Every structure is written in C-alpha cells, then in structure tokens.
C-alpha cells in the first residue's frame, strides 16, 4: 500500500511539472535567460511554479509535522544541518551550470522520459552517472575521516 501511494505521489508531482510547464526545457531556459528581458523573451513563469509549490508546502508541512508520526513510518526524516560548508556552495554551483546548459533539473528530466524523447534518455543516463560519481567521491576514505557521532539518545 505504501508503495502504491508513493507511485501516486510521484504521478501528482509529475503532473505538476507538466501543467506548470517545467517539463519543457525551452521554458526553463527562457526563465533563466535574464539577458532576454530587454528583448521581451524572458519567461517569468518558473517563479510562479516556485511560489505555488512553496506556498502549499509551507502550509502543508506545518500541519503534517504536527502529527505524532508519518502514516507509513515511525518518524520524520528531516535534514537538520544549518551550517554553510563548501559542498552546499559548490554542489548547487555545479548543478546550476548543468541546469543552464540543457534546461533540465532532475525531476523534469525523469518526467521527460515519459514524453518518449531520446534526448531526455541521454540526459537522464548522464545524470545518473553523475549522481553515482558524486556519492562515490563523497564516500572516499579521504573525505570521511571525520564523521559526526551517532546521537547517544537515539533509540
């Protein structure tokens, strides 16, 4: 049941990407193209996608996170770090360049697979390779010499 629900949630997410226009790289690139403002080719739509999504999650998370636990799990798994390290700067910088080069971020790229284009398939294959590489590098012994101890109060 939990698996089926997650499929439906992915479906809703994908529908949102299609309805909002984010599944079209041309629209994404025209949003990122602030140099097109004087010529009138800038497409501000993406800002509205972000606004709609953040408004719903801001309110929705407030309700959900007040519950004792998730429906299918024992606890909530939330990122708690608040420090700004080099990876939180370098990672998004690299990702942003990739986003600007092709017009795909991970969600729309996966949804684009369902449009049946071979271009999306090539992008997703390369994206997966990049993801595996990043996890491999992050787990190299030279980068994992220091780890935070497990919370002693965690049961």
């Amino acid at each position, binding site marked *: 049941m939990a698996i089926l629900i997650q499929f439906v949630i992915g479906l*809703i997410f994908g529908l949102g990407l*299609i309805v909002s226009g984010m599944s079209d790289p041309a629209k994404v690139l025209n949003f*990122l193209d602030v140099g097109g403002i004087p010529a009138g080719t800038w497409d*501000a739509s993406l800002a*509205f996608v972000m606004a709609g999504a953040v408004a719903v999650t801001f309110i929705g998370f407030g309700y959900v996170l007040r519950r004792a636990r998730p*429906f299918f799990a024992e606890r909530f798994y939330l990122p708690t770090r*608040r420090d700004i390290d080099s990876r939180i700067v370098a990672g998004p910088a690299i990702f942003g360049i*990739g986003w600007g080069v092709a017009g795909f971020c991970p969600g729309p790229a996966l949804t684009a697979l369902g449009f049946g284009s071979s271009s999306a398939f090539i992008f997703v294959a390369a994206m997966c390779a990049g*993801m595996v590489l990043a996890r491999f590098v992050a787990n190299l012994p030279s980068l994992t010499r220091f780890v935070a101890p497990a919370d002693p109060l965690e049961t």
Partner: protein
Amino acid sequence: MVATSFTPMASLVGGALIGLAAVLLMWATGRVAGVSGIAARLFPPYEDGEFAGRLAFVAGLVAAPLLVRLATGSLPPQTIEAGTVTLIVGGLLTGFGSVWGSGCTSGHGVCGLSRLSPRSLVATVIFVAAGMATVFVMRHWS
C-alpha cells in the same frame, strides 16, 4: 532559442500540485520530496530499505505524461534544443552537483525553502544564479 508564452496561472497551479505531492510524501513516509536524493538512492550503496518506494515515486514521475496523453489525447510542447554532447555534459553536471550539494530544485527550492532552511536558501540562490549566468554566457556571449 524557442519563444515560450508567459503562463502564470498554469504555472501556479502546477507548482501547487508539486507542493501537494511534497506534503503527501512527508505525510506518508516522513521524507523530503527531493528528486535528486530519491533518484540517487536507486543506485548502490543502499543505506535503508526504502528502495521500492523510491522506485515507485520515480515510476510515477515517468508515468505522468502517459496519464496526460491518455486523458487529453495529447501532450504539451517540449522543446529540447540541446545536442547529444550538451545533454551528456549537462546531465553529468546536474547529477553530480545536485547530489554533492544535497539537493536540487525540489529538495532545496521547494521543501527546504518552505522549512526556512538556511542551507537550502543558499543552495537555491546559487543554483538559480549559476543557471542564469550559464544561459547568459551561452546565448549572449558570441
């Protein structure tokens, strides 16, 4: 480049659907709807027993256009102008960078911002700025 029309209402509604999916995933599994994190964990090393759920979520993302085509008989426009080399370079950078920075547009831009995470705010500002700078160089520096 291909001109696209400004669609504030459709984008707002689509964005709200994305937000709804993120809230539902938090309600169901207690996890952040970050597509890069979910997709990356479909590959080893496996750290928990959530593989099937993640695969189902990604299958839903891929199936969404099929549902739209079934319901309406057509799909909205999708223009991919990038050539093979550009797609490979863009894919590698997108995959590596989103995992290296612990999230992408959905994890940082939607879930993180709505939780007022300072790390997500920094990440979102940087990837939007980097994307804008890249498009500027590619379109206007020639």
